[in-house]
């Protein structure tokens, strides 16, 4: 078992996921990993957000996102913690957008807004899923995301005219496109008001993930397998 400083993941006895996954599982895993990682990144603002009220709101949104990840992992496997923390960094399916360490407010808000806009497109598509478990969970997540969208939209309106925000949106745009499969990118481009471009695709990872993974899985890796919390 890996300990602190080890680069080996903690592994439970049961494989977290089947090695061969269908396209639906692949999509849900990508969604779950996005929610986990953006929740983790956004929680980095806890205690240091630019305003006290926003600190509370932003931390709460981060917690919600991690809650969505948990619900999705539970749909995919028996052990949400194993899925969240027992994989190697290269086994995560999150989009590069959510991995970026962005401790700068204009970038953080640009990412939140781009992410929520993209997320709404894919969640809306899942509302009509043939699997009632998936459609039901999508509806539940969607009701909570409505407030995240409201939050992101109000910040966008406020920052839209600042050069910092505009530059951040343009910089993050190829990453935002990578959140969605190619067939949903046209809808995103229409909402954001930018042209489609080459995307930073899911399946590739930035350096940000390895560093985040170290931190995110540290406690889990330092504990013996089967430890109960």
């Amino acid at each position, binding site marked *: 078992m890996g300990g602190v400083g080890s680069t080996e993941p903690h592994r439970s006895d049961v494989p977290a996921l089947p090695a061969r996954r269908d396209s639906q599982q692949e999509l849900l895993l990508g969604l779950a990993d996005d929610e986990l990682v953006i929740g983790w990144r956004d929680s980095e603002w806890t205690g240091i957000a630019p*305003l*006290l*009220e*926003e600190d*509370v*709101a932003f931390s*709460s949104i981060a917690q919600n996102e991690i809650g969505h990840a948990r619900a999705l992992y539970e749909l995919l496997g028996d052990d949400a913690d194993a899925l969240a923390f027992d994989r190697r960094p290269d086994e995560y399916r999150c989009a590069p957008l959510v991995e970026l360490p962005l401790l700068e407010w204009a970038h953080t808000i640009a990412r939140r807004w781009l992410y929520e806009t993209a997320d709404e497109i894919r969640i809306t598509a899942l509302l009509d899923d043939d699997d009632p478990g998936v459609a039901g969970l999508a509806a539940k997540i969607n009701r909570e995301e409505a*407030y995240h969208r*409201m*939050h992101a939209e*109000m910040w966008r309106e*406020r920052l839209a005219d600042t050069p910092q925000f505009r530059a951040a949106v343009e910089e993050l745009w190829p990453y935002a496109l990578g959140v969605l499969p190619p067939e949903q990118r046209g809808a995103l481009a229409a909402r954001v008001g930018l042209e489609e471009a080459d995307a930073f695709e899911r399946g590739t990872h930035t350096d940000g993930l390895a560093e985040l993974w170290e931190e995110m899985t540290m406690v889990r890796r330092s504990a013996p397998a089967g430890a109960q919390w």
Partner: protein
Amino acid sequence: MIWEIFRQDRKGQPFEHAGSVEAPDAEFAEAWAREQYGRRGESIALWLAPRDAIHAVTEWSDEFDLKYRRVDGYSIKARLKEARGRRRLDGAA
């Protein structure tokens, strides 16, 4: 801009002052008040009022000491003792 937040526990209950948030407009105030005073399911409704819109009353006068208007103007203790004594006598009779 300071917004005073009032919250209601359950339907039919009075709104009570919960605290305040500092927000530039009603939209931000709502988003932040939701998170601070509603996300644990502790409220079924919120009222958000700009502090400036609240007409506060803090000055009181009671120049003639009209203590009979106040609850502490009556000594209940002595009257209760008297009533109890009367009941004992009634019981004994």
